[in-house]
């Protein structure tokens, strides 16, 4: 009980703990590798009869965890496979996934539900190449009514890394009450209607915009939140990333954010706010709808161009809404962004074969149809199940939803966030750098060269 003894034992304890942490750190990394190796062997010998558990890692929100309700039926059909759902809130999704993998507890199936996209996972070598698995299994996308072009999105150099499961598109939602009040006719849902152009949209927006000192009376004609910020020039036909980006795993050899074409495209969008004054500033939107809110939902916007997930809440909006085609902006090929969520098997998966069985189950027509209802309106990738999706929204003509969806797919381009490497950093940088332009404190000519420089740096990381 004397001082020296106490001190020595404290020191020993400290040293012991440090050593323990260090040792387990090493062995953790090693064992993850061993396990992965061992497992490939086990999988090759075929999952015959032996009971295995696979983990599906997803976001902890109702529109994702509904898969838990699909498990009992699946397990009945596959008595040797147990499915466990592991979940995390959106904000913590990426950090938990990284920790699980580093800690040797890699889940088997997941998607890029966090900030990181497919290209990031691919370049970090986290994904299992499914090509052989698909061949061995005899999986054909036609049997699951998955369009060819969607399958190609997650194929790099002829190797497949993901099976699409949900498909969101860009569409226009409009507030019918505001159109009625301004005595305007509703915009078309047909993408082939050539009269429906960006300029026509601005014209109509002007008729609905009311700017008043009283914030309660102020309303705007249009909110053009088309895709992520770096993708917006594409809408007007300007291409900020070089063509090779899409074929080599998301690493562009060149970017053109300071080119006159790209700057002009951004200018057109900011003109909506500062010149035509038909769109709200970001401060106004925040004051009306909160940090992550949408002023359209508060009934303050006539037309809102955004992701089709906005439809999922449509049954709750306090006004009548309709869907329309995204107007033509000068790019004959692209008018919509596609957000196709794939299911992927992680490289460290212990049971890739069984995981693939589960993925196949999730894209069958019957399960995809069931998922629409269970998830509260997730759009299926299976075109046969899509018919049920079109009918899901109260007060909106299923024909309109169908036309808008099919047009959007025809004129769609897969979202950059899934396709470009280090995307979460690029996106953060864009939000920060464009901020002063959005508030009117800087011009695009000042900002774009800086962005061009920073994008180049981030891509090289």
């Amino acid at each position, binding site marked *: 009980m004397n001082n020296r003894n106490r001190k020595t034992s404290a020191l020993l304890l400290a040293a012991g703990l440090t050593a323990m942490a260090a040792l*387990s*750190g090493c062995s953790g990394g090693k064992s993850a590798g061993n396990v992965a190796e061992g497992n490939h062997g086990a999988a090759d010998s075929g999952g015959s009869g032996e009971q295995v558990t696979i983990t599906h890692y997803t976001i902890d929100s109702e529109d994702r965890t509904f898969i838990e309700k699909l498990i009992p039926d699946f397990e009945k059909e596959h008595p040797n496979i147990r499915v*466990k759902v592991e979940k995390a809130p959106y904000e913590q999704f990426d*950090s938990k996934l990284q920790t699980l993998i580093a800690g040797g507890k890699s889940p088997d199936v997941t998607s890029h539900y966090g900030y990181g996209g497919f290209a990031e996972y691919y370049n970090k070598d986290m994904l299992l190449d499914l090509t052989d698995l698909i061949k061995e299994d005899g999986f054909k996308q036609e049997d699951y009514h998955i369009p060819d072009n969607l399958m190609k999105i997650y194929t790099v150099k002829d190797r497949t890394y993901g099976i699409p499961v949900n498909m969101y598109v860009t569409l226009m939602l409009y507030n019918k009450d505001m159109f009625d009040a301004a005595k305007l006719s509703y915009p078309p849902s047909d993408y082939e209607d050539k009269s429906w152009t960006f300029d026509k949209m601005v014209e109509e927006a002007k008729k609905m915009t009311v700017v008043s000192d009283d914030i309660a009376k102020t309303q705007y004609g249009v909110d053009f939140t088309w895709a992520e910020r770096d993708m917006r020039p594409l809408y007007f036909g300007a291409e900020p990333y070089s063509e090779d980006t899409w074929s080599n795993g998301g690493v562009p050899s060149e970017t053109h954010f300071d080119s006159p074409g790209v700057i002009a495209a951004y200018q057109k969008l900011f003109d909506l706010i500062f010149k035509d004054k038909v769109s709200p500033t970001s401060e106004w939107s925040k004051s009306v709808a909160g940090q992550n809110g*949408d002023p359209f939902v508060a009934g303050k916007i006539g037309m809102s161009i955004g992701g089709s997930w906005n439809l999922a809440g449509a049954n709750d909006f306090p006004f009548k809404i309709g869907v329309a085609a995204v107007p033509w902006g000068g790019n004959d090929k692209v008018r919509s962004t596609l957000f196709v969520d794939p299911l992927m098997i992680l490289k460290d998966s212990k049971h890739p074969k069984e995981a693939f069985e589960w993925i196949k189950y999730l894209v069958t027509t019957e399960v995809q149809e069931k998922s629409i209802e269970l998830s509260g309106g997730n759009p299926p990738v299976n075109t046969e199940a899509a018919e049920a999706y079109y009918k899901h929204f109260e007060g909106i003509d299923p024909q309109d939803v169908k036309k808008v969806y099919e047009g959007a797919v025809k004129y769609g381009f897969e979202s950059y966030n899934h396709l470009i490497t280090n995307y979460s950093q690029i996106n953060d940088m864009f939000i920060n750098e464009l901020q002063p332009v959005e508030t009117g404190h800087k011009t695009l000519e000042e900002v774009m060269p800086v962005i061009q420089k920073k994008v180049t740096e981030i891509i090289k990381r």
Partner: protein
Amino acid sequence: MSIVRTANHRPAASAHRRRIDPVKAASFITLLITTFLMLLPLFFMVSTSLKSKKEMLKFPPTFLPESWAWSNYRDIFDTLQFGTLYKNSLIIAVLTVIGTLISSGLVAYGFARFRGRGNQFLFVLVLSTMMLPYPAIMIPQFVLFSHMNWIDTFLPLIVPAFFGSAYNIFLLRQFFSTLPEELFDAGRIDGCGELRMWWTIALPLSAPALATVAIFAFIYSWNDLLTPVLYLSSSEKFTLPVGMASLTSSRFRIPPWHLLMVASVLAMLPIVTLFALAQKQFVEGIVLTGIK
């Protein structure tokens, strides 16, 4: 002295029929306005928690609910398994507090009362652990606990508290150092061992500091999101912050703010209660240990 001065002031003031001191009045009004501003978010939290889903989306927002949706307070139990979440959070927080008080108290006592070679060095070493941000130790710690098969149990959330934390050790050490040596001499004469002196002399005299540490430990554990997210994987083991985060997790849906506010109101209760109970000690603790 101060009594004398007020006594001198009194007759003068009453002679002038209670004149209002402008400085006092101004500071009172400032305080009143600040209080009002500080309470406004709390007011909106409670008010929103009683609004219907449709009303919650309205702009400009209504000050008081148009129709009082008391059912929200029932619905939260259906939407989240609120009772379970609450219970889990409480278990973890209470055990964390106990662990923190025992371990940090003991270590701080050691640092405050014993002098010897390396003492300073060890203390600096302990304090330097405060410099490590959590993300830096996240993965090694996860690997460690995963080897101990502690994943999906409460252990990684509770056990570390039993090993002390630098901030609390520092806080308590400063307090223990102020205790007069004579007390311990007296104890020694009565034949107390060090542990006994810690328990019967140091701890009872340190109630304010212990209350402070307890409140800090409770709030930290109660609000912690990342650690439970990392270590827990079964829904029935989730804590309150994890459940609440799931309400805003959908990228595709408008978050049910009204239910989230219900959860926030209910989540606030233990902290408000704890603070009310320990307020006297807590304020004293802050004054005595000199933290602001």
